[in-house]
């Protein structure tokens, strides 16, 4: 039936050097879940819309380090933003996804999603990655690569075009993001500080900013 995060359930015994939280955002139907599923497994299938949030875990080696990426996949429909906003907290990386064949999904990134990041992200140094998905549908493309690059510059984010269907650039997307995160000292420190300390820190953030984001 709908997507589940099965791949995550047996990863508990594996060891890793660093652990990062990544968030996928963007309009409904741009392919956030598909990117994630393609990255995690080899299957390319039509997925159900995400209701609320879902997540998957991927262990991979980047730059000689064993990484554990916890990737939170959020519902794109506007009505769900009230539920998804709390997942920005503590994310070291945010992937902003649009569909190169639907212009409104591109303009919504600067009009809506970038503002959501500013509002809810607790990490000042958080690394952003702009992703134009569905490049396999080249004949239906309406957003050019140059436009994507320009927006990425404005947002101060990384940029890639990819296709969840053909797997083109999917792994690169998450790997480049992880590499960039590892270049930021504050994020690197957070990633290695797993366990109790991290939890306490998050709790403090929770207390101090409790009413802030909702008021």
């Amino acid at each position, binding site marked *: 039936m709908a997507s589940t*995060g099965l791949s995550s359930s047996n990863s508990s015994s594996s060891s890793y050097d660093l652990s990062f939280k990544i968030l996928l955002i963007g309009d409904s139907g741009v392919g956030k879940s598909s990117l994630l599923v393609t990255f995690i497994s080899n299957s390319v299938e039509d997925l159900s*819309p995400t*209701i609320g*949030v879902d997540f998957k875990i991927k262990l991979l080696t980047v730059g000689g380090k064993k990484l554990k990426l916890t990737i939170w996949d959020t519902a794109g*429909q506007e*009505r769900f933003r009230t539920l998804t906003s709390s997942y920005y907290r503590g994310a070291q990386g945010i992937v902003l996804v649009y569909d190169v064949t639907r212009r409104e999904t591109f303009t919504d990134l600067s009009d809506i999603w970038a503002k959501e990041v500013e509002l809810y992200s607790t990490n000042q140094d958080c690394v952003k990655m702009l992703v134009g998905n569905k490049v396999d549908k080249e004949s239906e493309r309406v957003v050019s690569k140059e436009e994507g690059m320009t927006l990425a510059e404005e947002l101060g984010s990384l940029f890639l075009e990819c296709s969840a269907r053909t797997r083109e650039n999917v792994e690169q997307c998450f790997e480049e993001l992880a590499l960039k995160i590892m270049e930021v000292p504050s994020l690197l420190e957070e990633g290695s500080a797993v366990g109790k300390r991290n*939890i306490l820190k*998050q709790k403090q953030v929770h207390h101090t900013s409790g009413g802030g984001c909702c008021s």
Partner: protein
Amino acid sequence: MEKKRVADDHEVEPAVPVRVDRFGFVKQEQNSAEGLCRSRSASEYEREERRIRKWRKMIGVGGSDWKHYIRRKPHVVKRRIRKGIPDCLRGLVWQLISGSRDLLLMNPGVYEQLVIYETSASELDIIRDISRTFPSHVFFRQRHGPGQRSLYNVLKAYSVFDRDVGYVQGMGFIAGLLLLYMSEEDAFWLLVALLKGAVHAPMEGLYLAGLPLVQQYLYQFDHLVKEHLPKLGEHFSQEMINPSMYASQWFITVFSYSFPFHLAIRIWDVFLYEGVRIVFKVGLALLKYCHDDLVLFHCQTEVVSVSYNFVVLSLEPAHGSLMHWI
């Protein structure tokens, strides 16, 4: 009747034959629920026949005796529903217990009006999700086929009927589930009965802007976990896990989204008769079932993954006992 039509459509298709389970979902090789699809023994078959006779007597022709019976013996009805409504009567009984049959009779022609003459601001959003709703079911998998058309009509009609709610992802799974057991118009009125609260508390707050009822239910569920499963509640607090991470889809779709179908319909039997408290009870039962595994994990994401994925899988062989816990 609907089921029959589904089967016919499928046979007409010249495409490669697909194997489906008894509910019409395309079988995947790794599907662990194989045991559920085995043919029934003679004694099971007889028992099922007896049950159907009992149910037919209880509801009368076309549901004519239902109201009388339910007034006289509500406890018998409750007990029988908990044992599961016979699949061939499910569609009719769902309409009777939800109050949707009355709405349908009181509003002749309204559905047709909504489908044919009105336009909805949500049309594009709905279209985009149609092929993503139960894509592995034979009724819905054919592009622009009767299943997808019915689903679109019901959702569009509702988005016009209640423009404040409009269309919210998740409603498609509820409508899809209903369409497997009844006609478009019946499914529409059942959706209305649920969201507007014909018998139980209205569900529309699950879908209105801000999702106020989802927030309320998650808050209440959090407290229920702490009260009924204190050890797990404490563990969840330590690991910073809250129900929005695993339970929002339980409430928004009443387990019709990512739950094994044979369990979902049993939950719906009871949910339609007893109301939303059943969603809480099933949710708590799931956590209780996996309690010992859940408290072992010491990482936020691992605990969450257990609580909403592993739970479902581990339940597969034990579906019979689920109803005992709620």
